[in-house]
């Protein structure tokens, strides 16, 4: 089921690079799933370009995986994410700001050593956060700061990241993603 189409191949290669920080098995599973998705979509008659556009840029998809795997919220708590995202965590967690998962914060509270995010069991986390952090000002990641344009963050399509501004895309992508989770 290997995608013979060069565009699909390039996308998968890029995704593999972006997922490099994840464990090999995890990465292979993800790649296989996306590859299956491409094959299924094409079998259903959807044009590849459209399918790839719907998946969004490979780096954004990789980041979505990284964030989701880092979240690890306790089950069944609808409000949990907003508490994880609240701006008060910024002061404690420094550069990781709102993206520090509850579990890491608990670890930090218990005084386990190591730089935040560097010694996480899934080694894949840190690079994604760090990469995004460089282009992110605190006001952009604080959920309340987006209150001026709530409808854009909650309902705008996750598929329509603009390719022309990669940096803000990654920030926006992440923020939208959170908006979706909180909703």
């Amino acid at each position, binding site marked *: 089921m290997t995608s013979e189409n060069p565009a699909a191949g390039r996308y998968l290669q890029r995704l593999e690079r972006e997922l490099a920080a994840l464990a090999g098995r995890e990465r292979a599973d993800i790649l296989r799933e996306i590859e299956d998705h491409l094959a*299924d979509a094409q079998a259903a008659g959807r044009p590849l370009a459209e399918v790839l556009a719907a998946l969004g840029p490979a780096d954004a998809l990789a980041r*979505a995986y990284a964030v989701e*795997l880092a979240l690890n919220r306790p089950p*069944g708590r609808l409000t949990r994410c907003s508490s994880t995202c609240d701006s008060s965590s910024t002061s404690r967690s420094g550069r990781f700001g709102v993206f520090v998962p509850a579990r890491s914060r608990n670890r930090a509270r218990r005084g386990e050593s190591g730089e935040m995010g560097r010694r996480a069991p899934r080694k894949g986390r840190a690079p994604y956060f760090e990469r995004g952090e460089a282009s992110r000002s605190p006001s952009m990641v604080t959920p309340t700061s987006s209150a001026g344009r709530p409808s854009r963050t909650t309902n705008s399509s*996750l598929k329509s990241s603009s390719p022309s501004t990669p940096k803000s895309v990654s920030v926006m992508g992440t923020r939208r993603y959170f908006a*979706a989770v909180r909703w």
Partner: protein
Amino acid sequence: MLELCVLRLLSRGPSYGYELVSTLDAYPMLASGENTVYPLLRRLRHDGALETFTRESPSGPVRQYYRCTREGERRLKELERDWNAMVSDVTGFLKEASR
């Protein structure tokens, strides 16, 4: 909310990624793009709410299917309860506040 919907879908029976994405696609308010559903599926699997197995589809290739575990069912119940409470609270509040 997407988590609730995914768990509900899978509690009815196993399904695979593309099928799930296509089903959820009909409900734009869920914001269920491929780039949210797949990462969510992976997390739910990590959490033990879902498990995967491979099965040959009657017409096509071997696919990775997801199914709900007991933990998933438990979480589904919790999420449904929370969601119903939220809907009822918000509805009540809006009614009260618009008087």
